């Protein structure tokens, strides 16, 4: 009887365990997609926004519109093209990026385009393709990673699926890193692109900045609403000069000190109010220096005056 009860318990335990594991226990495809990567988590000080963004990009897409695009440009009678298509259906490195036989589970949207298919030729008019198979990678349609038409990766298959997968993920990593560090839109044309000769107003303000090389990094204040600048401290009132003026009669150094204070005070008030100063800092420094010398020369006793 005991043996029977024990067997029942074992069967019940196994059954409940198998019922809990509906999906894979380890997402090995995501591990392959990430490649060599060290992410510091749970520590705001040492965290890297670039790495965090890369890990987020390579994770399961939030929706169909958040999937990246991988297009294989192929041609008839091309051994490399056939090899690539076969390997993409079987190789774990490539399957981690796109699953041609299971589009719903696929990390990216995957499609093969034949160069002789007239119905698709219009799509690739803006790019240069010199060899087949050529692989193109583009950001998702959602716009989360910039303009969806951007070619993030273009390469020709050299016969090594792991290398191709690593090259693709490396390009995505560089691209996502650029998005994190360089604030700008996509739109600077390259060799073949056709762009407007001016910078149009963005139709939708992207939630993430996009890269545009050759432009200085412009830091921005993330505080919302923006805070007014801290008030400039007003110069202290020259009490000593005023007292000496009242007690000992007017002297030039004391008068000069009062003038300097008045100028500094007016300047500080204007700056605090966001108005431009009447004279620039350089000219003011020169005037103050002149007044200082004048005051010193007046204050010094004459060398012959004993």
């Amino acid at each position, binding site marked *: 009887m005991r043996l029977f009860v024990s067997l029942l318990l074992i069967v019940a335990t196994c059954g409940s365990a198998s019922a809990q594991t509906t999906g894979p226990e380890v997402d090995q495809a995501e591990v392959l997609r990430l490649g060599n990567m060290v992410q510091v988590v749970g520590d705001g000080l040492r965290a890297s926004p670039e790495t965090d963004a890369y890990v987020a990009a390579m994770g399961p897409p939030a929706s169909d519109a958040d999937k990246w695009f991988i297009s294989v440009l192929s041609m008839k009678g091309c051994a490399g093209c056939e090899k690539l298509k076969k390997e993409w259906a079987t190789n774990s490195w490539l399957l981690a990026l796109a699953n041609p036989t299971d589009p719903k589970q696929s990390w990216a949207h995957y499609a093969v385009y034949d160069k002789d298919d007239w119905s698709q030729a219009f799509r690739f008019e803006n790019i240069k393709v010199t060899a087949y198979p050529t692989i193109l990678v583009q950001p998702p349609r959602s716009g989360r990673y910039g303009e969806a038409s951007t070619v993030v990766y273009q390469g020709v298959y050299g016969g090594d699926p792991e290398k191709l997968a690593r090259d693709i993920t490396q390009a995505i990593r560089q691209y996502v890193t650029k998005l994190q560090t360089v604030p700008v839109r996509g739109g600077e044309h390259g060799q073949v692109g056709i762009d407007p000769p001016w910078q149009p107003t963005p139709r939708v303000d992207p939630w993430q900045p*996009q890269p545009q090389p050759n432009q200085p990094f412009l830091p921005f204040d993330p505080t919302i609403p923006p805070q007014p600048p801290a008030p400039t401290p007003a110069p202290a009132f020259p009490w000593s000069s005023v007292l000496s003026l009242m007690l000992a009669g007017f002297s030039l150094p004391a008068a000069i000190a009062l003038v300097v204070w008045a100028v500094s005070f007016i300047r500080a008030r204007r700056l605090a109010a966001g108005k431009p100063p009447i004279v620039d800092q350089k000219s003011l420094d020169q005037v103050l220096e002149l007044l200082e010398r004048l005051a010193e020369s007046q204050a010094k006793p004459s060398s012959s005056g004993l």
Partner: protein
Amino acid sequence: MIRIPLMIVSWLLLASSAWAQGIECPDPRLAADLPKEIRTWFRNPDGSCVQCSIGMCGVDQNVPAAATLLWDTEYGRRERGGSGPSRVAGYCDRRGIRAFNVTGSSTWDWMKWAAETGRGAAIGAGSAHFQTFMGYDRQSGTWYVCNNNSPSRIDEYDEAAFRRLHLASGQWVVILDYPPHPARPRYFRWW
């Protein structure tokens, strides 16, 4: 004296040319990306509006088996004439075309899903007629549809007009279950 009629004529000319231009692919408001020249391949020849509409979606999503429905090809014999959901299911099975064959009240949601994910759809539109759904602009509430009887242009409908259009044919849509097309790739110096 002659200036006023001249001004009116020129204004009318300008207005008519602006109206005639309409919306054209590619446009961010459109989910499908089908140039005019390709859409005209699918001008309805003989009451095959369902296959014309599915065929356009086939080109948009790069599904040759669907794109070639109207013609005899290696993907199968041509499918001409009127269709209902069961006939569509039959030739999709024969040709191995994966599709969502949807009837009833959820068609609005399916069309919006298609638009958001960059897919077109073959939809009931007009009395006993099928057309190609090209996109939906949520902000303005505009629906974009290409009629296979006038494929060189894309028609625009507001919410009320589109509702009438879709209901006139009965709520039925066919959406190909394949990835959407990528945006036309371009080089940006992001690196």
